[in-house]
Every structure is written in C-alpha cells, then in structure tokens.
C-alpha cells in the first residue's frame, strides 16, 4: 500500500511517499481502507522525535482516520465488514497517512450517515479531546464563562462550539483580526485579539471582574500566565497543550489564593483507560451532529502525496479548523 513513511526523525520534508507492507491485524483490531485522515499538531512532533510516543522506524504517521472496515479481528464484537467508521490510530498498527490502517475496535466508531469522510477524519482527536476536557475534566456548567485560547485552531474551534452547545458564555482569543469572524461564526459571544488587547483586562471587563470559570488552553506560554490572572474563584484551567512552544509554570501560591485548579487533560490515555466513557462522549457528539448542532470545520485538504505541504500549512498557522488528507473519497 501507498503511505507517507517516517524513516528517521526530521521535519515534514523528510517523509517518504512509497509502497510499504500493510500492517498485520491483531485479534482486537479492525483493518480500514482509509478514506481520509485528519492532521494534528502532535503528528509533526512525532515525526520530529519530540512526542512522548516514539514508534519504531519505519512508520506511517497520522493519528486519526475515517474509512471502511475491510477486515475484522477474531475478538471484535461491535463492527462488521463495510461499516463506515472513524478512529484514532494506535501507532503500533501504523498511522493514518496510508491507504490502510489497523485500529483497535474500542477506539473505532460508526459515523452518522450524513457526515462526510473529510468531516469524520478530523473528528475523533479534536472533538474527543475537547468534550473530555470540558465535561469530565472541566465540569463545565451551563451559564458558566468559558475562555478558549487559540479559538480559531482545530481544538479551539471545537471548544467554542461545544461550549455553546453546553450553554456556556464563550470568550475566544485569537492572534489576528482575520480569525475573529470564524470564531464568532462558531458561536463565541466575545472574541479577544491578544496581539492588540490584554487578555486579562478584557476578560475581567467582560465578566464584571469575576474572571472565567473554565479556561481551555492548548496554547501555553503567555496565554497560560495571563489565564492565572483572570480565572474565577474555583475556576478550572485546562492544560491541553503548548502550541506556543513554551511550557509554562504555575506558581502554587497563585493557585491557592485563587482557589482554582490547574487540570491536566491527557485524552489519549483517558480514551484507552476509560473506553466506555469515551464511547459515550462520542455518541453524544454524534447525536448533536445529527441535530445540526456541530459543524466540523475542514479548511484545507491535501492529497496523500502532499502530507509534507499539509504539515507546513499547519505549522505556518495558515489554517483555521482542521486540515485533512484526502486519500480515497470513493469508498
């Protein structure tokens, strides 16, 4: 099968597009013919050898896919041949930037009929992470104020959308005026451009000095530091990632005085350890999708031959929402 293959740690250009053997199937796994694969920031870390998971060479990167089930492992019970599904990949069975992927049945879900391959391909990681973050980790309640950093990015846009569906007042932060419209379109009540305004001052002004109850932070760095200055009493600061490149430090006395929480969100282990809750999360979001409440935003697609270019677009922050690798729409 054709795949984008990582043979040594390096930048996107070091990926090699070539034929490799299809991965073997385990008893609790299913094989998919991949229709499309979602691109995520950690994919770029993984091929650079900077991610906590370091697969053995050679491997195809790509952490999520949509496709059709073509083979079912002996111990699988839920899925059958021909099912349209989305899944995260377990890197042991190879990633999604390939014509076939082998995934664990427990991580694999039938998708709503009305959802396109491209929408489905970019759904599991970002929506899965964000739902888990807001519900299980952030305990977001209707009428609370949710502040979303990097609101125009993949996970950020999901957080805006899901926060609104859950009844919160949503404030989004973005780095340029060009991104304000898309964040408003996804339902944000307010948008702050942090390159021209102080996040802390604006959040305080918008909340009557109370601060934000839940803060969704996939950015880190300065956004995190400012968050600790505008978090509400008993607020929850969700640590999703560090797209800014700087891992921040939280002074423990500030956490004490604010009576707040710094909450780590590590979705991968959650989905594996608590697969029943993970499945319930996904099924709730599928219902919302069918009710027209969720609109996965795919802003750019690239063919399988152009994964390096897709990664460059992601790293250049040219995109809003998701970038998807379009592999075989005809499935």
């Amino acid at each position, binding site marked *: 099968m054709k795949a984008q293959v990582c043979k040594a740690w390096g930048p996107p250009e070091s990926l090699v597009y070539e034929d490799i053997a299809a991965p073997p199937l385990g008893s609790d796994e299913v094989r998919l013919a991949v229709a499309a694969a979602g691109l995520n920031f950690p994919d770029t870390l993984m091929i650079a050898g900077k991610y*906590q998971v370091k697969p053995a060479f050679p491997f195809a990167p790509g952490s999520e896919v949509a496709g059709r089930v073509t083979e079912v492992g002996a111990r699988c019970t839920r899925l059958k041949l021909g099912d349209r599904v989305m899944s995260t990949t377990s890197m042991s069975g190879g990633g999604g930037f390939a014509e076939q992927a082998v995934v664990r049945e427990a991580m694999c879900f039938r998708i709503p009929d009305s959802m396109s391959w491209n929408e489905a391909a970019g759904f599991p990681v970002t929506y899965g992470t964000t739902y888990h973050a807001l519900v299980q980790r952030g305990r977001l309640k209707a009428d609370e104020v949710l502040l979303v950093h990097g609101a125009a990015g993949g996970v950020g846009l999901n957080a805006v959308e899901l926060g609104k569906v859950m009844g919160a007042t949503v404030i989004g932060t973005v780095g340029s005026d060009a991104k304000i419209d898309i964040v408003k379109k996804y339902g944000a009540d307010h948008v702050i451009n942090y390159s021209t305004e102080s996040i802390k001052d604006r959040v305080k002004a918008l909340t009557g000095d109370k601060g934000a109850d839940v803060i969704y932070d996939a950015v880190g760095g300065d956004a995190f530091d400012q968050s600790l200055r505008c978090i509400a*009493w008993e607020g929850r600061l969700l640590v999703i990632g560090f797209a800014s490149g700087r891992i*921040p430090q939280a002074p423990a006395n500030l*956490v004490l005085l604010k009576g707040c929480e*710094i909450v780590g969100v*590590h979705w991968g282990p959650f989905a594996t350890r608590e697969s029943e809750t993970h499945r319930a999360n996904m099924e709730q979001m599928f219902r919302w999708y069918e009710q027209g409440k969720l609109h996965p935003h795919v802003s750019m697609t690239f063919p399988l031959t152009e994964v390096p270019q897709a990664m460059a677009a992601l790293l250049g922050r040219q995109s809003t929402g998701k970038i998807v690798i379009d592999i075989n729409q005809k499935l």
Partner: protein
Amino acid sequence: MKAQMCKAWGPPESLVYEDVPSPMPGPGQVKIAVKAAGMNFPDTLLIEGKYQIKPPFPFAPGAEAAGTVIAVGPGVTRFRIGDKIMGTSATGSGGYAEEMIAGENSAQPIPDGMTWEQAAGFAAVYGTSYHALVQRAHLAAGETLLVLGAAGGVGLAAVELGKAMGATVIGAVGADEKFAVVLEHGADHVINYTTGSLKDQVKALTADKGADVIYDAVGGDMFDQSMRCIAWEGRLLVVGFASGRIPSLPANLALLKGCQIVGVFYGAFAAREPETATANFAAMARLFAAGKLRPHVSKTFPLKDAPHAMRELLTRKYPGKLVLTMDAA
C-alpha cells in the same frame, strides 16, 4: 483586657503583653471571652509581615480561639450571649488576647464533650482539612490519601478525616519520632521522607499507582516529589508552604499525569460560602460525637508566654496543636 500586641513586624519576642481596650463587635460579629486560643504556623508569618493579610498596627495575632459569647454586633442571628463557640478571628482582633472578635459566619458551636483547648485549635485545621478533602478533592472511599506533614496540625486533622471518609491514608513525616502519633490517629502507613524517597515509598505502598489525593501544607521539595507519585486523575491539594519555599508546577507534568493541582483557600471559602462551611462543621460534630475525631493538643502555654510558645511552635517538634490558655495568664 490583656493581649499580646504586634506593634511592628518582627519575631515572636517583639510582641508586647499589655492592657488594651476591649474590642467592639461590628455588624455580623460577636465578641468572645477567650478560654483558649489555637496557635498556627501562619501566626508567625503574620507578625513578621510575611502573610498575605497585613492588619494595621497595633493588633493581636491569633487566627482562632474558643470561648463564651459576651457581646453581639448588629444583625447577628446565630449566636446569643453565653453561647460557647469556636471560631476564626476577625482581622486585627486575634485570639492571643482575653477577648476576641469573630465573624458570626466563621464561628461554630462547640460540640458536646470537646474541651476548651481542643475547641480552640479545631476551627482552622479541621475546617481547612474538611473543605480540602470534600469540596476541593472529592475524596472517595477506597481512594488513597497521602498527607504530607502528617503530624502537624492540619496534617493530623487530614489523617483523621481521611480515615473517617473511608480512604487508605499514608502519612508522611520528617522524623521517626512522629510515627506513633500519626498511626494513633488512624493512618494506615507512615513514611519518613528524610530517610527515603517519597516517590518510591508511595509507589511501593500503592502498587505503582500513586496517591489519588495528596494533601500538601508543606510545599517546596515535597510538592515537587508529589507530582512524581500522584495517580492518574489524582488531585494535589495546595494547602500551604510550611517548608518556606513556594513551588512551581510545570504544566506539562499536569497534562501527562492527567492530574489536577487544586488550590485550597479556606478563609476565602468560609467567607464566600458560609452555609457550606457551617454544614461542614455540623458533619464534623457528628464525627466527633462518634469518636472518629480526637483533636490532639500537645501542650498548653499561658497567654503571657506567647512568644516562647511561638518559638516552640517553630521547632516543629510537637504533633497536633499548641494552645494558649487564659486562666493562667
């Protein structure tokens, strides 16, 4: 009335024991004739000007006391003259004095059978520990609770409350002499973090899983080590920094562990959510009546000896509480 007055930031010896005018309760406050006053580590920070609250001079320190209500301010509904109460002090009128002002909302009736000395040291440490474990950590029966500084005031309260809530409790102390008192108050295990790594000992006791809830009033290195032995979805309670060093949390560690770092600010909680705070004390009164809480008073000192008593407190050799009493003053 007699009081130990702080007139300038300084060490315990700079307190002045003298006659001062009787304080007056304001709206929502009560005045108590103090029978006994609990001593707390932050008292020593307060008089040195190193605490987050800095009352105007002169003031009597002392965060908590027990006594009899002798006057009530306007609007007070929960207490009458003659009631026996314990409570935390209003800013500037502390318990190192024959009379103290307490906010009505921070005061609680003394459970039957509790001595004045026990009651004097009950409100702050048990109030803090209960709030931390219940509202902040959501400690569940069957979980593992690690208490740092387990022989100290808040530490022993956390050990007792953790056991009463059905947790497996590991107490961590800095000296072998403190093992006995921590075990006596119900801990399942006690470890000495000066003779072995906290991380290794906790991992060994939890089959590598780590502690679900960590109660940290110590800070410094203990906080750093706690992040290495916290369970998946664990909660690290930031209660204080008795070690003197305020630690910083690398956010990526919180992410990788899927854990949370939870600030516990009891004073602000009690002021903002007085009904929950009062319900907490009602629950603790039931635990006390059932014999599950046994507030530990190591030693009492007369009020006039407060500077010496503070020095003794700073040695950290006494488990549980040190208390000032008025009768011998």
